[in-house]
Every structure is written in C-alpha cells, then in structure tokens.
C-alpha cells in the first residue's frame, strides 16, 4: 500500500500551488480556480485520513461531501458576483477594481 | 471450473479465455490486466461497430417515414452505405482555423467520443456481462456524461468562430438544465431497486419493470435524455438553419468524424440506458435458465427504443431556446421533484416486496405505484390545463386591441 504521508504530501503540494495562485493571479476567476485547487487539496487529505484511519466511521467522507457542497455554492455566488461586476465595469482584474483605497 | 456452458455463453467464454491466458504462463495480475484491456476493447468495438449499422438503419427509416427510399446503392439494400461515407470522412484534410486554440481544439473531439464510450463500461448486456459492475453505476453514468458537455463547450470556444460559440452557450444552457430532471428521474429506479449498480437495477426488475411501476419517471428520463443527446426536437445546439452547424462548424475530416461518432453512439447509448433502467434490461422469458438470451433481449429493447427516437426525430419540429428552457425549468424540474417525493413516499409506505415474492404479493405493490403515477399524471394534466387556459386568456386579452392581426 502507498504510505499515508505520500497522499498528505501531494495534498500539501496542491494546496501550496493553490496558495500561489491566490496570491499571484490578477484575474478574479483565476483566483477562484486557485481556491478550488486548495479545496481539492483539503479533500485529498480528508479522504486519505478516512482511508488510513477508521474506514468504518464516515466522518472524513461526510466532511469531503460537505466541502463539495460548499465549493459548489461558493462558485455559484462568486461567479454571479463576477458577472455583476463585469457588467458594471468591464473588468475582473483585481488590481483594476480599486474604487476604495485606504 | 465447470466446463463450457452454452446457456451462459459470455461468462463461459470469459472463463475459457482466462484459463487459456493462465496456461500461457502469465501471472494472475497480468491476466486481470489483459482481461480488463480486452473488455475495454470489446465494449468500444461494440459501440463503434453498432454505429455503422444504426446510421444506415436510421437513414433508411427516415427515408421511409418521409416517403423516400433512403440509401440503396452500396451493398445489398444499401447496407454498406456507411463504409464509403466513413472512408470519405477519414481521408479528408484536417483543418485547424488560424486563430483557434490548437490544444483544446484537438482535445475536444477525443473527449466527446470518450465520454460516451465510457458510459458503456457499466451497461449490463446480460446478467453480469458488463464492463464493471460498479456499485455506483448510475452515478458514474451521470458523472461521465458531464465530459460530453465539456467537450462541446471547448470545441465551440476553441474554434474561434461566433456560431460555434453561440452553440456552446446553448449547449451549456440546455445540457446543464436537462441534467437536473435527468438525474432526478434516474433516482426513482435507484430508489426502487435500492442500489445504484446497473446490474442490481436490472435484477430488481424481476418484480416488474420500472416502466410499469414508474411510468412518469420513464417519460421524464426519456425526454431529458433526448435533450442530453441533442436530437430533435432538442437539436438546437447545431440547428443548421440558425447557427450553420453549431459547435463543430470548423471541424473537418477525422476530428469531425469523432464528433459525429460520439453523437451517434450517444443516441443509442441513451436508449440502452433507458432499456436498462426502465425496461428490465436483459430480463425476459427464460433468461434465468439461459443467461445468454439476455444479450438478445437487451439489444431488442434498445433498438426498439431507438426506433421511437428516430420516429420522434422525423416528426417533431425544433423548439426555440426560450421555450426549451421554460419547458425544462417550469415543467420538467418541478414535475420530477414532485415525482421523486411521491414515489419515495409510495415505495416507503408499500414496502419493497421480497425477491421471491409471488404474483399475489406483487400485485398490490404494482397497483399502488402505478396508481400513484396515474394520479400524479392526472393532477399534472389538470394543472397544465388550468395554467394553459389562463395564459391563453391573457394572450387573447392582450391581442384584442389589434383585431387586424390574424394568424399566430
């Protein structure tokens, strides 16, 4: 069997890639995609811990399912916001959205 | 191993084949790998091979319905017509538009074909004769289908052509919307069978085909799967008279052929699923004694449903996009939700009959479920009638000031 730590490392790598995307991308949609990567990293962790912990107790899988649900809801609301903001100013580049500063 | 059993032809062939491989000196791990590979090749070959005949069959049928002869030149009765057609398509030049996104442009057709062939992995041809008997087969089908949407979306976008893009938008609107009633109606057989395994669903229909127990679900599934395939009257993703040919307008040669192939496979795949989920799949007389018969029953059912598809295709005009979406969101989705709730309540209240229940025990079960469906259908029709007449009255009231206008 593959050691648990391998999965956790893959998940850590995926999380850090997502983190980089969140910090470095200009476009709001791209940032959202990076956040999705982070959430996936979390899910890899959860499922791996479920598998190598107690597979009879479903906590990890339930948690992962809840993360799916939340991710879907978040994406829907986020994309609705992007569309609304795009209507009002033709850009979703985060640096150009700067009406308020201080 | 208990020798070769002709009544269970396919499983026996599998056994003989496996033993032969083992005798060749392969290790057990390799044998299972080779078996899986062979299974995949077989299923794919079946899917692709069937297309060759369904194309001819469909063209001839459409011809008859439209009072023509259809193809009749190549081979006996024109049966081999597809062969030169395929050759022609494959030898055409593959053109990539100058500003297309090349990577995505070439990925899209493969994805389109893959998504439908993958579905065949879980369709049972006979009891146990299937790619994999996943315990989540029904969910797998829905999941894999989503690649098809993605493929069309990518094809439309990467072609850098506005008609293709418009088509891609329609695709998202249509396919994603119709996926909702599709999944909701799919849940009813899952609920009645108590399993998501495709084979398990067929086995559960020993107590009556689900088309009898849940006809409304069957209708919803049938309608929304027609929309998923994008066939008339839901063929507006490629409405040739409006957006030339839709998402695949820029494609040619082999790549176009792949879209074409994917679409045709999808068309009868959906029929195979309808047969499996609602019409008892491989079930039929004497199938328990002679399991090999299941394949024949399954194919007969599948093509019978496919015939209805073609029939509809030739007789129904295309819908408009707003009508199409209205129909889905304002009719199909609410109906399938209500249907799901009602069916689960009814199934819960009557209780599932045992696997070996006699006819006398089964009849009340059938009666209740069928009765529930009839009542639900009656209520639906009544509501439709009331709403429809109200809308009509409003339209007439709006029309009155202009008596000069006639006709629709």
């Amino acid at each position: 069997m593959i050691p648990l730590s391998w999965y956790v490392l893959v998940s850590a790598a995926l999380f850090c890639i997502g983190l980089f995307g969140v910090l470095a991308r200009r476009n709001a949609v791209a940032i959202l995609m990076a956040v999705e990567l982070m959430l996936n990293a979390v899910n890899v962790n959860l499922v791996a811990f479920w598998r190598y912990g107690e597979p009879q107790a479903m906590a990890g899988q339930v948690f992962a399912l809840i993360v799916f649900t939340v991710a879907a809801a978040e994406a829907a609301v986020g994309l609705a916001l992007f569309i609304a903001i795009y209507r009002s100013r033709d850009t979703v580049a985060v640096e150009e959205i700067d009406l308020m500063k201080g | 191993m208990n020798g070769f059993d002709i009544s269970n032809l396919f499983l026996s062939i599998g056994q003989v084949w496996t033993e032969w491989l083992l005798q060749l000196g392969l290790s057990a791990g390799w044998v299972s790998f080779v078996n899986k590979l062979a299974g995949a090749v077989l299923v794919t070959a079946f899917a692709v091979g069937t297309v060759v005949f369904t194309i001819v069959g469909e063209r001839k049928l459409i011809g008859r319905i439209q009072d023509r002869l259809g193809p009749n030149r190549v081979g006996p009765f024109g049966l081999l017509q597809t062969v030169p057609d395929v050759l022609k398509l494959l030898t055409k030049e593959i053109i990539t538009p100058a500003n297309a996104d090349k990577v995505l442009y070439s990925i899209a057709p493969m994805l389109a074909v893959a998504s439908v062939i993958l579905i065949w992995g879980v369709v049972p041809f006979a009891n146990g004769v299937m790619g994999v008997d996943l315990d989540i087969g029904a969910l797998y089908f829905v999941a894999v289908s989503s690649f098809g949407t993605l493929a069309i979306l990518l094809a439309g976008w990467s072609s850098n052509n506005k008609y293709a893009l418009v088509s891609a938008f329609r695709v998202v609107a249509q396919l994603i919307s119709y996926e909702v009633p599709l999944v909701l109606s799919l849940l009813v057989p899952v609920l009645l069978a108590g399993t998501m395994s495709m084979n398990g669903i067929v086995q559960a229909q020993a107590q009556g085909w689900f088309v009898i127990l849940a006809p409304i679900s069957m209708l919803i599934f049938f309608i929304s799967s027609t929309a998923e395939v994008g066939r008339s009257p839901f063929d507006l993703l490629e409405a040739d008279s409006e957006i030339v040919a839709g998402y695949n307008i820029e494609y040619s040669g082999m790549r176009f052929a792949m879209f074409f192939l994917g679409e045709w496979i999808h068309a009868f795949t959906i029929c195979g699923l309808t047969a499996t989920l609602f019409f008892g799949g491989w079930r039929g007389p004497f199938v328990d004694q002679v399991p090999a018969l299941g394949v024949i029953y399954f194919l007969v059912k599948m093509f019978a449903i496919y015939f209805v598809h073609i029939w509809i295709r030739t007789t129904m005009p295309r819908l408009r996009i707003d009508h199409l979406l209205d129909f889905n969101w304002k009719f199909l989705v609410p109906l399938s939700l209500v249907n799901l709730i009602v069916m689960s309540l009814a199934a819960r209240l009557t209780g599932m009959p045992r696997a070996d229940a006699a006819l006398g025990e089964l009849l009340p079960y059938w009666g209740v479920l069928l009765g529930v469906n009839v009542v639900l259908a009656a209520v639906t029709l009544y509501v439709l009638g009331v709403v429809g007449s109200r809308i009509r009255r409003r339209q007439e009231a709006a029309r009155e000031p202009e008596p000069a206008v006639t006709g629709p």
Partner: protein
Amino acid sequence: MTYAVFILFTLMALCGGVLVVTQRNLVRAATALVLSLFGVAGLYVLLEAGFLAAVQVLVYIGAIAILIIFAIMLTRRMVQGDESGLNRQWGWALVSAVVMFALFCYVVVKAWPLALGAVSAPAVPADSTEALGLALLDWEQYVLPFEIASVLLLSAMVGAVVIAREKHDS
C-alpha cells in the same frame, strides 16, 4: 502497479494545478483545472472512495468547472488581454508558497512516516457508500450538517440569482 497509477494521478493533479495558476489564457487554465480535478478523482479511486470520485467528477467537472468556463466566456473581453496573468508580487507569492510547502513537508514527515514498507490500514467495508448515506441521515450522526447544507444551497441559489440577474425592464 498501484504506484504507477498513484504517480500518474498525482502528476495529473499537480501538473494541472501548476497550469491553472500559470496559464495566461483563462479557458486553458480552466481546462487544466479539469485535468487536475480528474487526477484528484483518480486519487479517490485509489483510496477506495469510489462514490466521492464520481461525485468529484459530477460536481467539480460537470458543474463547477463548466460554470467557471461559462463565466469566462461571458466575460471574455478580458480573457484576450495581452498582459501577464500574474500580478506584480508573484515573486513573493512564489517564495511564500515554497516556504509553506517546505514547512508542511517537515510537519507531515514528522507525524506520518514516509517509509514504503509495513503500511497497513483496516479494510474498507464493502458497503461504504451505503454507510455514507446512512451516516448522513442518522440522528446520532450527521443529519444536521446534511440539512444545513441544503439551507446553504438554497441561500446560495437565491443570492446568485439576486446578484446576477439583469435589471428589470418589466
């Protein structure tokens, strides 16, 4: 064999991820996201969570990724910009991500051994999908999160419609 499959899916997930955060073209980035998500689904299969793998494909690829691509297309004027997809502080972002990863590696390796041999885990019960379903509806387990999740979806739906709907011109 399992290792090869693991490495394949890991590569899919990670390479897809890297493409997501570096690709300038957003539709390509979204396609890379699909690749990455598919790799993750593969990892679920390896972990014997088939149901989650199917849900991953269905929800993430079938809904979220398509929604994202759709939003990109709707707002497509900005997709074809010439500027780089990264902002000015991308160097710092890279450094912090790498440092973070190094820290995680340290922590993970301290807690869970890397060694290949002697890895064992209890077998997954055959009906784990059913167990999951029962856990979600069990009064002594997760029925409350399950119900709250539906409230969440409902409010998100109402909210998204309110926000994205075009102005009324009744």
